[in-house]
């Protein structure tokens, strides 16, 4: 029996691994740039999935809209701050790790 | 019942992380590290207030503790470090200048 609620739960649970791998990436990747990859991408997808799941379970459309607003804001904040940090690192001559 | 036990686990993890953070923050040699730890400490405190069903306090902590004190500390850190490098500072120059100009003004008046 697939209801919206169950679908939401599925999405939420699917979101979790992204957070975990984001952290794993943060810990395992070799330099600041690659860690930025892990941070921005994995976490945003995880958050997106969780927001999708919660939206499926939400009571009204205003809540859904608010959830999406939150996601957009987090996307903006993380991609911008990621770019700023990377740029600042480039300007400070921090060389990327090469194999 | 299940949810209560999960909540207790949540509490324990949260509190022990908080304490660990605080310990590392206060014991670390690197002051910048301590400041970053303090920022994350603020974030986790907001979660703790949420858990204690105090959303008002959590809101204030999220904005102040996690959002504003971090920048406050960071810019204070910058201000302190800059002085070691003996950088030129507008405000100090101006202060000197204002003392000086007023002095000369006074002398002219006399």
């Amino acid at each position, binding site marked *: 029996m697939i209801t919206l609620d169950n679908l939401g739960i599925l999405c939420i649970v699917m979101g979790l691994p992204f957070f975990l791998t984001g952290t794993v990436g943060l810990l395992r990747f070799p330099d600041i740039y690659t860690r930025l990859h892990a941070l921005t*991408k994995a976490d*945003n997808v995880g958050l997106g999935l969780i927001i999708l799941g919660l939206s499926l379970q939400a009571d009204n459309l*205003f809540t859904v809209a608010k959830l999406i607003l939150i996601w957009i804001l987090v996307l903006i904040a993380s991609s911008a701050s990621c*770019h700023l940090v990377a740029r600042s690192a480039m300007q400070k001559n921090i060389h990327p790790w090469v194999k | 019942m299940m949810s209560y036990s999960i909540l207790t686990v949540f509490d324990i993890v949260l509190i022990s992380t908080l304490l660990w953070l605080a310990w590392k923050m206060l014991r670390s040699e690197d002051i910048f590290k301590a400041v970053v730890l303090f920022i994350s400490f603020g974030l986790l405190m907001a979660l703790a207030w949420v858990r204690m069903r105090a959303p008002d306090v959590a809101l204030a902590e999220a904005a102040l503790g996690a959002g504003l004190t971090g920048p406050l500390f960071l810019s204070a850190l910058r201000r302190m470090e800059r002085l070691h490098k003996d950088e030129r500072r507008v405000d100090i120059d101006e202060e000197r200048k204002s003392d000086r100009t007023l002095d000369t003004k006074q002398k002219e008046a006399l």
Partner: protein
Amino acid sequence: MQDNNRLSIHSHSHLGRCIFLRFLLFSAVWLVLTGSEAESWIIGFPAIGCAVFLSLKLSPSSHVSLSFVGICSFIPFFLRQSSLSGIDVMRRALSRRLAVNPGLVSYTTFLPEGAPRIFFVNTISLLPGTLSADLQSNTVTVHTIDKNIPIWANIQNLELRIAILWRVTPQKGKAL
């Protein structure tokens, strides 16, 4: 430069349109925040007024003309790409020997200064395997996590879609 000229020619109507658009945008946000409470507009209107004022103070001119079709096609593209990027990172982080082979690529974009270019730079960071590390006038330095993936094609694809979104015509020769 072009933007400034346009501003001086259609200054009045442009400003009016700008205020109106921002007013609409902030009203929508306010509506989302408060839900359907009618009373909230007592504070809402002054708040929106302040926000519009501040936003005009911060960015006096912005020429927004998005194409509806562009938006409709861009959202699914973006969602698909960003979930792919998440999966990509997951795969690399979990593989036993770290599957990373980072490198830097410079890319010159034809997108005009302002919103399209900023949007472009920000979106690069959310695409699989790429991260915008610097922006000097129209040259974006892209850090990639793996030199073997087709970065060039990906970025070009993104650039074209953003061009459609903002109704920009690609200028030949500049993109390459």
